[in-house]
């Protein structure tokens, strides 16, 4: 049971929901950049939420299925055809042996996900299959996929009815909700006003480690640096050049720049879908509101009975 990479996309990696328990060694969790879409993809093909899937960025790539299976595409809509026929998004689909799935450029956000029944099979590193590109661990030989790679996947024996989603959530990516960051009070109120008033532009230099911004420059205050401390995912750091950076799934585990705000967990899936040139604003909410939104988003998955924890 395998799939062959005929043409790699811009950056395609194997991911699960992340490698937890090792940030004290400097090892970032990594994991799917839009975990909401990723989990849906797994559930659609009857997998556990954490089974290994493929994350594609900006341009998908071409893949040949060497065995028949059940597959699904979720996340942002990319052009996608199976042997020339349109391949649906957010729907489990039977793919036959020898068929080629061609995933072109994105028509929407930055990333889409391919999941197959049984998940892709790669070695687990520290309990996870997630690729961390800088460390070169996890996924397929610790790197993004290349032409000729052959990836094994699970054997499909179940006869689960493919699920289709009635309503696909299309979050508004022009607003990222945030809570106050650990150094929020270090920023003068006039600088915070600029931060919340202006629109930021996603920089070309963004990646899974961090989403860099262009546009307004934010003055950090008296000092550019703080005593190095743990960096939460979604932390918005303001380095000396004044251009905020949103720490993301492959983030450095600690950082020394002041953190003005932190993107709320429920909006991290939006960060994974922002692409260079996109414009967005930050909007402040309370910690209590953020936590409520997070658990509301989590409750969405409860209706899938075969969902495992």
């Amino acid at each position, binding site marked *: 049971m395998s799939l062959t990479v005929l043409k790699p996309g811009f950056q395609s990696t194997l991911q699960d929901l992340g490698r937890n328990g090792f*940030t004290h060694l*400097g090892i970032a969790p990594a994991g799917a950049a839009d975990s909401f879409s990723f989990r849906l993809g797994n559930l659609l093909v009857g997998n556990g939420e954490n089974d290994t899937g493929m994350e594609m960025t900006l341009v998908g790539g071409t893949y040949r299925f060497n065995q028949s299976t059940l597959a699904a595409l979720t996340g942002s809509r990319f052009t996608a055809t199976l042997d020339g026929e349109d391949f649906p998004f957010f729907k489990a689909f039977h793919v036959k042996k020898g068929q080629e799935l061609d995933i072109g450029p994105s028509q929407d956000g930055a990333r889409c996900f391919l999941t197959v029944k049984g998940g892709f099979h790669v070695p687990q590193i520290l309990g996870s299959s997630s690729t961390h590109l800088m460390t070169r661990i996890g996924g397929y030989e610790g790197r993004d996929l290349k032409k000729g790679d052959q990836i094994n996947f699970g054997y499909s024996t179940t006869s689960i009815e493919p699920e289709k989603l009635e309503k696909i959530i299309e979050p508004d990516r022009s607003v990222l909700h945030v*809570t106050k960051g650990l150094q929020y009070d270090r920023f003068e109120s006039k600088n915070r006003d600029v931060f919340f008033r202006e629109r930021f532009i996603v920089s070309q230099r963004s990646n899974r480690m961090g989403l860099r911004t262009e546009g307004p420059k934010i003055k950090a205050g008296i000092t550019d640096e703080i005593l190095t401390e*743990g960096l939460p995912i979604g932390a918005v750091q303001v380095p000396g050049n004044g251009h905020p950076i949103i720490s993301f799934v492959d983030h*450095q585990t600690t950082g020394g720049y002041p953190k003005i705000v932190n993107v709320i*967990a429920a909006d991290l899936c939006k960060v994974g879908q922002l692409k260079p040139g996109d414009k967005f604003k930050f909007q402040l909410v309370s910690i209590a509101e953020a936590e409520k939104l997070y658990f509301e988003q989590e409750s969405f998955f409860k209706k899938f009975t075969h969902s495992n924890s």
Partner: protein
Amino acid sequence: MILDPTVIPASDRSILVQFGDEISEDLHYQVYLFTQGLLSSSHQAISNISPGYSSVLVRLHHKTTLAEGMDTIEEVLKEEHPGDTIPQRTVEIPVCYEDEFGPDLGRVLKHTGYDKEELIERHTSGMYMVYFLGFSAGFPYIGGMDESLATPRLETPRKTVPAGSVGIAGHQTGMYPLSTPGGWNLIGRTPLPLFNRSEPKDTAIRMGDRIRFRTVGRAEFESLGQSQS
């Protein structure tokens, strides 16, 4: 020992436990005890922790609420740590200070006013302290460098710094376990693999270790490198 830090949410899914706001061995001791307490406790509420110089960031398990996370933190803080001490492990780091491995030696010599011999003497005579690992896999935050060696970071960071590079940035000295971008002044390289992809948990250096640098020549650098690989 019962610890009494400030405990505040850092985001809706993480909590910062802050023991102070400076680099000191006393604060490090508290950070170390709490880190070990979290790592050895059987709680289910926490998925990841990141110690820093004077704080520990606690990231919640995906099913845990902030309130539950706070409770777990309180429990671990209240645990007694009778006679706990940091295991005093000293790790010797062989470093080859040849020009080929230290492209910024000239910059550091110019800034400090030392000749190369004196720079090596001062860099290798120190006993260093590993406060924590962070940034990238196996990257040690090291304190205790001779203040007179302090040299500002490069204005433009390198796109790639070879793994094993030893450098100086401001008042810090350190090593790059992985080939990453970086802005430190590179003064040498160690053949010791600091991060091993096949045994990622066994980082060469751990939080709380003491470090000494030892100067090695080109021949020893190569033979050490071969025996390690």
